[in-house]
Structure formats: C-alpha cells, structure tokens
C-alpha cells in the first residue's frame, strides 16, 4: 500500500516536471533571448554570454526608437481586447441564460450556428472582410477589429456560460420567485452571484482569444491607429537591415505575456468552481 502510493507520487512528480519543462521551456528561452545583446543572438547558447546581458531590448521598445510602434500597439491591444471581451461576456451571459433556462424555437439553431462560426477558418473570411471594411470605412479602426473579435469570442463564451448556467439548480430561481422576487430580481440575487466564477472564467478565455489574434490584426489594420501587439511585432526591424530584431521581439513578447499572467493570478480565486455546493442536497 505505502509502496504503491510512494511509487505513484514519484511517477506523478516526474510527469508534472516533464510537462512543466515542455510548456515553460519556450517562455524561458524567449526570456533569456530578450536579455541578449544583438551580437550575442547567434552565439548558440541558451543564456546570454556572461557580462553581455543587457536591457537594451526593453529600452528600445519602451523608450527607444521602437517606442511608437510598440506602445501604441499595446494600447490598441489592451483597449480592443477589453472592449471585445466586455461586449462578448455581457451578450453571452444573457444568451446563455436564455439557452439554459428557456425553451424557445431555434434554440438548437443558435447553438449550432455558434459552433459553426467558431470552427469556420478565420483566414477564409479575412479577405472579404478586408474589402467590406475598406468600403464602409471600418478598416484600420478599433471597431473594425472589435467586431471580428466578437465572432471569435462570442461562440466560445456562449458555450461555456450555457454549460455553467445549466449547473445552477433552477429551483434556486423558482424559490426566489416564490419568496417574492421578480424574474429580474431572481436572476440578479440568486443566479448572478453563483454565475460569477463562470463569468470570470469566460471573460478570461475571451480576453486570451482577442489578445492572441494575429490574422485579423495584421489584415485589417495599416497604421498605429488600431494595430494590436501581435501584428506590430511583425513590423519590428533591427537597427539596420542586416540585423534581426529578435531581441526586441522577444522583449515585446515577454511584456505582452505579463497582463495575461496578472489576470490569471488576480482572478484565480474567482475561477474556483464548486461555489454552488450547498445549494441543494449534495
């Protein structure tokens, strides 16, 4: 018995370490690269050569000559992703609630459509969208990116939230109504507090999707007015045409990872499920 559990523990530790290495190695590699000086990039070593570690890459993108390109892109990314996430979550909450609770014609259709939209290859609609946006004047604007981002974030938000709402016992709402609540009060006082973790989880997923998008970002923008970070990285250039901008790109990649990590750490407590335990007989 003891033998077995010790064996298990060792096995699990080994597996966990392997997975961690697999997942984190690229991140660590980029982190190391971001501190390398241009001449050190091709050294073939993992870490910067001793004594040559430098923060010049960060200086370049934050205060140096790539500053305009990067900071405006960061601003665009944050703004566009937050707005797209917010709209997606609000719409998806209402939609998912209706799907989970009400029986209306076309319910299946909505879910199927949502699924179809999310599996539709982005690259195939980007060209028509490019033409359309140019005609109606949405090209290279925030709105011009928020709308396609909604098409990416809404389906997954609706699916996640619908699954989440289905877990909340319907009796809670009915009990609230019998206790004297209007439909809206029952939703706000009995359902929303319980749905909060689900909404946070969905919001984070939606934010990731919008934050990571590259295809729309590079196709539907042309200037700093709306270009998000993933697209902007492609426009980084080295100090001369013979110099690869690898260091600067690495530094930018590290910086755009930080908000995501912060988000997860911040909402970690909200994401814990199991908040509904105790509502009904468990």
């Amino acid at each position, binding site marked *: 018995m003891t033998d077995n559990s010790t064996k298990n523990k060792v096995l699990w530790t080994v597996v966990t370490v392997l997975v961690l290495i697999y997942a984190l190695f690229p991140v660590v590699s980029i982190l190391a690269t971001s501190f390398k000086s241009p001449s050190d990039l091709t050294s073939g070593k993992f870490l910067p050569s001793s004594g040559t570690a430098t923060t010049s890459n960060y200086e370049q993108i934050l205060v140096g000559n790539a500053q305009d390109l990067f900071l405006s892109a960061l601003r665009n990314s944050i703004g566009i992703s937050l707005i797209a996430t917010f709209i997606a979550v609000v719409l998806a909450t209402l939609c998912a609630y209706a799907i989970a609770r009400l029986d209306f014609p076309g319910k299946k259709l909505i879910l199927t459509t949502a699924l179809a939209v999310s599996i539709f290859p982005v690259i195939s609609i980007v060209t028509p969208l490019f033409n359309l946006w140019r005609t109606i004047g949405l090209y290279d604007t925030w709105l011009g990116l928020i709308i396609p981002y909604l098409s990416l974030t809404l389906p997954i938000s609706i699916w996640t939230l619908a699954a989440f709402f289905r877990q909340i016992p319907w009796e809670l709402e*009915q*009990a609230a*109504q019998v206790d*004297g609540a209007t439909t809206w009060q029952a939703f706000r006082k009995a359902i929303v507090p319980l749905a909060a973790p689900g909404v946070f989880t969905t919001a984070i997923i939606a934010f990731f999707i919008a934050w990571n998008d590259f295809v729309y970002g590079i196709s539907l923008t042309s200037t700093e007015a709306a270009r998000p970070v993933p697209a902007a990285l492609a426009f980084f250039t080295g100090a001369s045409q013979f110099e690869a901008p690898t260091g600067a790109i690495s530094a930018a990649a590290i910086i755009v990872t930080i908000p995501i990590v912060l988000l997860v750490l911040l909402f970690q407590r909200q994401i814990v499920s199991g908040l509904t*335990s105790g509502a*009904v*007989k*468990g």
Partner: protein
Amino acid sequence: MASITLNNLVKKYGDGFPAVNDISIDIADGEFIILVGPSGCGKSTLLRMIVGLEDITDGDLLIDGKRVNDKAPRERNLAMVFQNYALYPHLTVYENIAFPLRLAKGKHSEEQVDKLVTEAASTLELTDHLQRKPANLSGGQRQRVAMGRAIVRQADAFLFDEPLSNLDAKLRGQMRSEISQMQRRLGVTSVYVTHDQTEAMTLGDRVAVLKKGELQQIASPRELYEQPINLFVAGFIGSPSMNFLPATVEGNTLKTVLGDLAITPEKAAKAAGKRVVLVGVRPEFFEDAKLVEDSKRGHGSTFTASLTHTEWLGNEQYGYITFDPAPEVRELLNNLARDMDADELRPQIVVTLDAASRIRGGREAEIWLDTRKLHLFDPETGENLTRDAAAGAALTEEANEERAEEIANAQGHSPQDSDRSRQGSASESPDSAEAPRSAGSADAGSAGGATAAGGGKHTAG
C-alpha cells in the same frame, strides 16, 4: 391564512398529454392536505400549479375566493419548501431566512427582520448556525433552513414538495413530527406532496390519491384505508399492501384459491351478476387460527394453506402464500402493479400473524380470516362494490373535528369559541369524499371545513 380551491384544473404539455386532468379539491383554511401517488401521477405538477411555477392550461385556482390563475408566484403569497431545499449557497443561514423579508422592500425595518429571523431560527433550533453557509450544514439542518425561509413570512399557505425524501429514515421520522406540530401551531393551510405512505397517513387531514393525472379519491387517511373507492387506492394505501384474490360468488360464499369464505348477504348482493370479483384482503385480516379468540372466530372463515416463508419482526410476523391465478387475473394484477409503480406483482398473499405464532414456512397451517372487513372489487372497472360511503364520510368528518381541536389546542384556544366564524370556506360536504366532485357542489359546504377555518383564524390575531 387562506383557503385554496382547485376547480377542474388541467395541465397539458406541448404534446397534449394531460399531466393533471380535471382535478377539483377544496382545501379549507388550516387544513393539511397530502397529494400522494406513484411517480408521474402529476402530484408535483399540481403543487407547482398552485404556487404558480407551472401555467394552468384550464380550470380555476382560487385563493381565498380570488382567482389567481394569471398571478405571478410572488403575488400569491405562498411559501414553498423544495425537495432539494434550494438554499442560496452564497448567503449565510441568517440571510437565507431573511431573503423573503429583504425582497419585500420597505415592509420591514432592520430590527423587525432581525426579530423575525431570530424567532424563526429558534423555532427550528438553528440559532447556533445563523452565520454559517448552507454548504457547511447537515441535510437535516439544510432542510430546517428551507423551512425557516417559509415560516419567516406570513404566507397564506405552505406548500411542500417531497421535503423529506432526501433525509435518512431516522431524521425523516423526526422532521415529520416537527412539521406536523408546526403546522398545527401555526394553523397554516398546507399542501404536501409525497410518495411516502407513512408521511401521507400520519401528516394529512385529508389525503388526495392521484393516478396518471387524475384524482382517485380524497378523504381522511382512515377513510382511504377502510373505505377505498377502487382497486388502485386500495392497493396503494397500506403497507404491506392489500391482497387481491380472484373469487366467484355463489350465494353467500366466495370461492377463492384459499377456500370458501362466508360473507354477509348484503355484501354478496352487491356483487350480484358479476362472474368474477376481486376480493381485497388486508394482511392484518388474517391470523393464526390457533391464536384466535373464540369470541372472534365466528366472524371469519378458517382455511389451511402452506406458507412459503415467514418473516418475524418482533411485534408481528409476515407470512407469504403463493397462488397461481388464471391468466386474465394475472394480467389484471400486473397492470395494477404497473399503475402503482411496483415491479411485476408476484401472485402471492401476505398475511400478518401474531408474533407468538409458531407457523413456519413449508408446513400446512390453519389460518383464520376475518371476513367482516373484506372488500369486493369489480375486476373490469376496478370499482369497489362494497364501499360504504356513509361510513367513509363519517370517518373523514371525525378527522375534521379532530383537526379543529388539535389546532385549537396547539394555539391555546378551546374549539368552541371558533364557532362565530362559520361563514367559512366551503369544503368537505359529506360527498366530497367521493372522488372528483362536480364543480357545482362547491357551495354545498358544511360545518367540517368551517370549524377548522375558525380554528385557523386565531393565529392572525
């Protein structure tokens, strides 16, 4: 406090299937009504129609004489206890109980809320747990919180949807008596859905037996037990359930698989013209022939049979006799079993014997059967041919009087001074014990319900 009247209520779902079909019940003020039946009989649907969570397809629902069909649940002022408690997990016990009060904005000051919640909590012995979350409570405590939420507001009636089905047997018995006492103390009209016989028999002033959306019989537990209206009610009420034996009537004798049973000429007359009847025999009508007192022996018949096995329970024992019925009777018994939610009914007879009996399985034994209380059923319609409606109504009437007295006692009043409020909610005419009554007889009300209504009135003061 209120009376509730159900007039020909119908609930049809999208596919046109009537989950509740033409049910009419008059529930008097302060009365405790049980809705009982096998699963899928529409009892929960009916309850949810009363509280307003389920639309009414047809018919009228009146609370205190006012039609409430189209009112939202919150406008009906009813309190409901759900089967799975439906507590708000993000709120403490205190806030859970206070929830209905907080929703009625402006009606209660903070001190009043505190006072009402504290009162309700002490009634239910929850005072120590007020600051805990439902997740940390045991099943029984959660159940009490759900009750607390119901009693904290002055609701017109309590509705219970199988509130004890999630508790273990011991706790269930305890909560059952608590609910019963609380109902008497508050004198609140209550409707209680259950599939548990014991709850139905012990809690109810009247019990409504439903089958496939239709009301079979509504009467006091004793009337249901002693004067069931048909095969279904007879078989459903009582545990172990009534035995049904096919028999032919010849003069004043019933020819059954157990032998010949002598019955009174009146009973025999009622079965006249039927080729085959089903004899309904409760297990306790049987006795070990050796242990029957001579004074009683004359009231029954004795036969010999071989028991397959016996079960000794301490206070009594059950014996089992198998028999082989004709195919058409077997079919009938199987249908009946299906109606009652049971598996295929084994054609066996359960007999209750005195604990002292030495009869054991496998041996021939002499068994005595009390034939006075037998019922004869028409095997085709299921109708009880020998039902004594007057005797049944008398039993229900008795139960009504007892209720009035109990409520009065629980509230510290004598039953007499409730007479002045006899204007009361029409209910229980003697024939309301007869299954679905016609809508017209609603005003044929008599003293039964009104007295009780008076008993309930005092809580308001």
